[in-house]
């Protein structure tokens, strides 16, 4: 399993889809987009910060752990930091797998784990 983890301060550009492995049958992509309201208030966007080296280590461990459970071939993970305006993606994940079942399961668990354990924060000081 290959993992590509990146943090960027620019708008996320999904990397070229390289299904070089000819046994890939499922490509699943998730974009997490900033919504126009947060806790009932209209916002211009959200500001994200990360403890980058630890976030990267955590993500690598989580991806290794999850792909042992759900057979997937390759994972791309990109999190945008700093200000992300409404309507733009703060998160992009692509999973290549032979079959859709493991890709869907890994995607769901990876996002759950991101939101539980990876040191990335949504900063609310632009909300007010």
């Amino acid at each position, binding site marked *: 399993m290959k993992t590509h983890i990146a943090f960027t301060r620019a708008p996320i550009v999904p990397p070229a889809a390289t299904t070089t492995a000819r046994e890939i049958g499922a490509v699943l992509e998730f974009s997490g987009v900033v919504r126009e309201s947060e806790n009932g208030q209209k916002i211009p966007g959200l500001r994200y910060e990360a*403890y980058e080296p630890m976030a990267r280590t955590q993500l690598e461990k989580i991806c290794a752990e999850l792909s042992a459970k759900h057979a997937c071939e390759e994972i791309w993970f990109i999190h945008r930091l700093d200000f992300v305006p409404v309507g733009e993606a703060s998160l992009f994940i692509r999973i290549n797998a032979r079959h859709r079942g493991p890709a869907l399961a890994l995607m769901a668990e990876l996002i759950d784990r*991101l939101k539980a354990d*990876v040191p990335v924060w949504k900063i609310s000081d632009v909300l007010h």
Partner: protein
Amino acid sequence: MKIKILTFAQTRTQLGFDEKDFECHAGETPREILRRLAPQFDPGKTIRVAVNQEYADWDQPVGNASELALIPPVSGG
């Protein structure tokens, strides 16, 4: 020995710095180090601590770690 203390999100606001080198010794736990650094600060149940970029126990000595980070509830995605 010196340990680098990192804060993020609301812990940065609460402690008023984002990183600081702080004198400590290997037998001290994160809780003890924080108590000396900021006696008014209480991590409560929601703030975790990471030692050398791994989640750690507030009450386990830091050993020869070089980095201690306060991890308030995360909210990525």
